[in-house]
C-alpha cells in the first residue's frame, strides 16, 4: 500500500526529495568517522589530509603508549563491572515494575529514567558536591557508581519492554506446580528475558566505556579513562596516533555489540533446531 501513497506527480517528487535528504543525512553521519579511520592509516606526520601513503606505524606507536594502555584497561574493567551490576539491578527493577502494583509505582518509574534526562554536567557536579560535603576524596568507587547511575535508565527500559511481553501465566503455572518463586523466575522468566539481558549489558558497557563529561568530574586525580585520555591528547595536537586510537575504539565499541548480537542470533537458531529435533 505504501507504493500507492506517492503515486501522484507531486508525491513522486516529494518521495525523491525525501530519499535524497535521507542519503545526505546518512553521509553526514558517517563521513567524519570514515575520515578518521582512513587517516589512521595515513603515513603523514600530521593528523589531517592530504593522504600521503599507507602506514601502520601509528598503531605500532599506540601499542607502546603506556598511558593509553592504562586508560584502556581502566575503562574496560569499569565498563565490565557497570554492565554486570546495572543489568542485575535492571532485571530486578523491571520485574517489580511489570509484575507488581504498588503505591508510588508511577513516581518510581519516572525517578528511574531521570538520570537519562538530567544533563551529565549536573549529575557530575551533584555527586562531586555530595562527596565534598561529607569530606571524601574522589575514588574509583564514585566513578563506578556514577556510571551505574547513568546506564540504569536504559537498562530498565529495555528489560521492562521485554518483560511486558512475557506472560505471567507461565511463571504462575510453575508456581502452582510447586516451584519456588526464585526457581520459577530462573527457569521460566530469565531464559525468555535473555535477549533483553544481553542488549542491556552491551548498552551499559558502551555507555560506561564512552562516558566523557561526567567522568571528567568524577575520576580520581591522576586516573584517565579512554575518553578523557583522548581529550587530554587532543589538547596537545591532532596527532595521527589519535586517529589510530579512535579506530581501535570504534572496533571495540561497534564490534562487541555486533558480535554479541550475531552470537545471540546463532544461539536462538541453534536452540530452535535442537527443539525441533526434540519434538520430532
Amino acid at each position, binding site marked *: 500500500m505504501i507504493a500507492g501513497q506517492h503515486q501522484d506527480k507531486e508525491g513522486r517528487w516529494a518521495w525523491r526529495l525525501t530519499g535524497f535528504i535521507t542519503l545526505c543525512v546518512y553521509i553526514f553521519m558517517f563521513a567524519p568517522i570514515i575520515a578518521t579511520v582512513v587517516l589512521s592509516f595515513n603515513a603523514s606526520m600530521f593528523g589531517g589530509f592530504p593522504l600521503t601513503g599507507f602506514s601502520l606505524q601509528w598503531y605500532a606507536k599506540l601499542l607502546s603508549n603506556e598511558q593509553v594502555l592504562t586508560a584502556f584497561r581502566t575503562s574496560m574493567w569499569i565498563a565490565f563491572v557497570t554492565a554486570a551490576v546495572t543489568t542485575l539491578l535492571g532485571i530486578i527493577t523491571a520485574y517489580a515494575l511489570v509484575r507488581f502494583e504498588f503505591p508510588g509505582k508511577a513516581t518510581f518509574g*519516572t525517578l528511574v529514567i531521570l538520570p537519562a534526562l538530567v544533563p551529565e554536567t549536573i549529575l557530575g557536579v551533584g555527586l562531586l558536591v555530595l562527596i565534598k560535603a561529607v569530606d571524601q576524596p574522589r575514588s574509583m568507587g564514585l566513578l563506578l557508581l556514577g556510571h551505574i547511575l547513568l546506564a540504569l535508565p536504559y537498562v530498565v527500559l529495555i528489560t521492562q519492554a521485554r518483560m511486558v511481553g512475557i506472560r505471567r501465566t507461565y511463571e504462575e503455572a510453575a508456581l502452582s506446580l510447586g516451584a519456588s518463586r526464585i526457581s520459577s523466575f530462573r527457569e521460566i522468566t530469565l531464559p525468555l528475558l535473555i535477549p533483553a539481558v544481553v542488549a542491556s549489558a552491551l548498552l551499559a558497557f558502551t555507555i560506561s566505556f564512552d562516558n566523557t563529561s561526567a567522568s571528567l568530574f568524577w575520576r580520581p586525580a591522576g586516573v584517565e579513562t579512554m575518553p578523557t585520555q583522548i581529550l587530554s591528547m587532543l589538547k596537545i595536537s591532532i596527532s595521527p596516533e589519535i586517529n589510530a586510537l579512535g579506530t581501535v575504539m570504534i572496533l571495540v565499541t561497534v564490534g562487541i555489540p555486533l558480535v554479541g548480537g550475531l552470537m545471540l542470533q546463532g544461539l536462538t537458531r541453534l536452540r530452535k533446531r535442537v527443539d525441533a529435533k526434540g519434538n520430532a
Partner: protein
Amino acid sequence: MGMTKGWKLYDPRLAWMLVAPVLLLLLLFLLLPIAVMGVYTFFTFVTAGVETSALTFANWKEFLTDSYYHGFLLKTVRVGAMTAIICAVLGYFPAYFIWATTFRHKWLLLLLLIVPFWISFTIRTFSWIHILGEQGIINVTLLKLGLIDQPLQMLYTEGAVIMGLLHFLLPYMILNVYVSLESIDRTLISAARSMGCTSAQAFREVTLPLSLPGLGAGLLLCFVLAAGSYVTPQLLGSGRDALFGNLIYDTIMGQLNWPMGATLSIVLFVVLGCFAAAYTRYMGMSQIVKGLGG
C-alpha cells in the same frame, strides 16, 4: 520462600523489597546530591577550594545581577533551540523514508542509525576536525581545486559546534519520529487516499499530525542534550562558543568556586527542567520513554 508466608503472590511489600536497592541508589546519588547542591548555593565562597557554611545570598545575587551569566544562559538556550529545530527538519525525512520505504533491508537503515550510539562520542566529535579543519577534507579539496587560496575558518566557530551537536543528536530525533510513525495505523492513509486526498494532503492531514508526539519528544530530548553539552563546544568551538556546561566546569574545576558552580548547576537544572515539565504536561511521559528505549 519462608518470609513470604501469608503474603499475596504480588504483594506490594515484596515489590518494595525488590526496588529497594535501586530506590536507595537513586535517593542517595541522584536526589540527595541535587538537594546538597541546592544548599551549597547559599554557602560563602572564601577562596579557591575553600568555602564556609555561613549562609548567604551572594551567589544568587551575583548570578541574577551579572549580565555575563545571562549572556551564557541565553546563548545556551539559543544554540540548544537551533540545534533541536534543525534536527527536527533534517531528521523527519530519514524517519519518514525508513518508515515508508519498500526496500527489503530496512533493518540495515535502522541498524546504521544505532551504530553511532556505539561509537565513542568523543571520537565522533573530534572527527569533525578532519572535515572542517585547516587540514580537513573541505579545505584541502578547495585549495587543490584553486577555489580558495586561504583555508576557510570553519572549525572553532558556533557553526562547527552546532554541526557537532547535530551529528550527535540526529539519531535520537530520527528514532523518536520513526517510533511515532510506526504506531500509525497505515489503513488511515489508504483511506485518505481512496477518499480523494492527494499524497501531500494525506501527509498533511493524517501522517504529520499523528507523528507529532515523536517529533515533540525528539525536540525536547535534542534541546536538553544540546543545552547540557560540554564536550562539543570544548572540542569544536573557540572560547567564545563555550556553553553553560563549560561555564560550570570552569567554575568548579578551574576556579574551584564550589558555591557558584552549584548555583550555576541548579540554574541549568531548573531551566531545562521547566522545558521538560512544560512538555510532559502536554504530551505525557510515555513518548520520551518510547524514544529512549529505541
